């Protein structure tokens, strides 16, 4: 089984993701440059779209990457129910593609923000949060456009269908605007699609995958992702 880690021109977290996945038994991650197109995704069982500045974020974060041919392959795989994980710029690309609803707007401060945050994991089980439902984890964020927004309709669907696995919170799990680093609607840090196999999240689980880095809370999410791929 193979997990494809995509790289667009300007992606810069692919090695961090490969390294974190390589620590997990049976993951078998491979790097797939986007220029390989659909051929690059043959025989792939899951996809990770890592963070970075695909195409420099020059037009709009994730916009140019989202119309590259290889994304058709991502769409096919997602429709097949295979696991797809978009981290940071990856999340932006998934929303531009329409695989996840809503859009990531510029942060409320209109500045890039890098800091450690706490996330409250929803009680409701999802493919990616098995075993850690309801817990509070500490992971870093690093983005300039992480302000999640969607229409009232979409917002209701997300809530009713329990598709918000991650929300920004305090160290003790309080969901308050004071702990929202970027102005995201309802403190949303990550969402899943209706099928439950596509996750987009702004924080970086791969950067919280080894204790020496300050936290290994992100590892569980990646482990669940790998397990779901098998």
């Amino acid at each position, binding site marked *: 089984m193979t997990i494809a880690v995509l790289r667009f021109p300007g992606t810069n977290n692919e090695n961090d993701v490969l390294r974190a996945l390589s620590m997990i038994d049976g993951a078998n991650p491979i790097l797939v440059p986007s220029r390989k197109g659909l051929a690059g995704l043959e025989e792939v069982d899951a996809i990770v779209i890592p963070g970075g500045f695909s195409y420099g974020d020059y037009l709009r974060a994730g916009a140019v990457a989202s119309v590259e041919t290889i994304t058709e392959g991502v769409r096919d795989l997602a429709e097949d129910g295979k696991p797809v994980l978009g981290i940071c710029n990856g999340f932006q690309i998934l929303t531009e593609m329409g695989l996840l609803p809503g859009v990531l707007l510029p942060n409320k401060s209109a500045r890039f923000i890098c800091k450690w945050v706490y996330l409250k994991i929803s009680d409701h089980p999802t493919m990616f949060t098995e075993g850690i439902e309801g817990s509070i984890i500490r992971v870093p964020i690093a983005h300039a456009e992480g302000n999640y927004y969607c*229409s009232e309709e979409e917002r209701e669907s997300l809530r009713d269908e329990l598709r918000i696995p991650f929300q920004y919170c305090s160290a003790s799990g309080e969901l308050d605007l004071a702990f929202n680093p970027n102005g995201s609607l309802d403190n949303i840090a990550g969402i899943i699609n209706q099928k439950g196999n596509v996750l987009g999240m702004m924080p970086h689980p791969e950067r919280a995958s080894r204790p020496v880095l300050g936290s290994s809370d992100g590892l569980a999410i990646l482990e669940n992702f790998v397990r779901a791929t098998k």
Partner: protein
Amino acid sequence: MTLINEGKVKRVLQDPNSSERVIIEFTDKVTAGDGEKKEEFTGKGAVACEMSNYLFGYLEGKGIDTHYVKKLTDNQLLCKKVTIYPVEVVCRNKAAGSFCRRYGTKKGIEFSEPLVEFFVKDDAFHDPLITAGAINRLGLVNRQDLEFLRSVALSVNYYLRELLQQRKLILVDFKLEFGRTEKGYIVIADEISPDSMRIWDSSSTSMDKDVFREDKGDLIATYQKVFEEIKKAKPQDVGPRIERMQVIVEPKSGIKNPPGEVTKKALERLGFADVHEVRMGKIFTISLKRPITSEILNQLAIMNVKLLSNPISENHKVRIES
């Protein structure tokens, strides 16, 4: 063949072979002063038809959409069937004709840049001059289309002027009519001939219908002479003109725009006026090395929602640079 329209000097007939085609027939008549002065010269129709044939072909070669399909007979052109726009578009490089009468300007004054004017097609009111604003309020042509008509006129102005310049001929002004094909594309319709343009030679002598209007010479001989000259010019030596479209992308009202908010606070800190709101957007200036056509604008509309803007949170509008 069914007659669709009888004009002062041309007739529009339905093409029996295709419902999407018409035949434009050039009669030997010539009129001036809104039909006041009338004459008929043998061979005039053929010359006017042949010149339209040549010039439409030339403009099509440069990438400008027209209704022209091909020449059928000496005085007939096969053209696409269009719904004619209710306004005529005039482009002037120098003051002449009705412009001088309107403002008392001396004939021949060079304009610093080409002037585009619109006239309503209305016999009863003698095709009066009309402003873009009035066109919009009267619902004659929508804003977007009018901008396009203006840009095509300027494009045609460039390509005709450059061609004529090779033979030391001056393009003083010209009139275009436009139509909309069944597919919705906007194309140049009617004719392009000395009936609808003013061309002067290097000594400012008229080589167009003015010789008839002002009784200055032999119409047919003049038309033939100017056509001979034009045919000597080399279309391939007229280089492409750079044309620009701008796509302006703005955040939708109601959507939070942090960059705009931060800018507003910064302006306030610097003591700038009482600002109500600031919203920050983007402008894409897309240059083409060829004329802009309806097709291109349609494709741009797709690009606007697919790539250049995010319809969830942004609005966009297109401006054609003139």
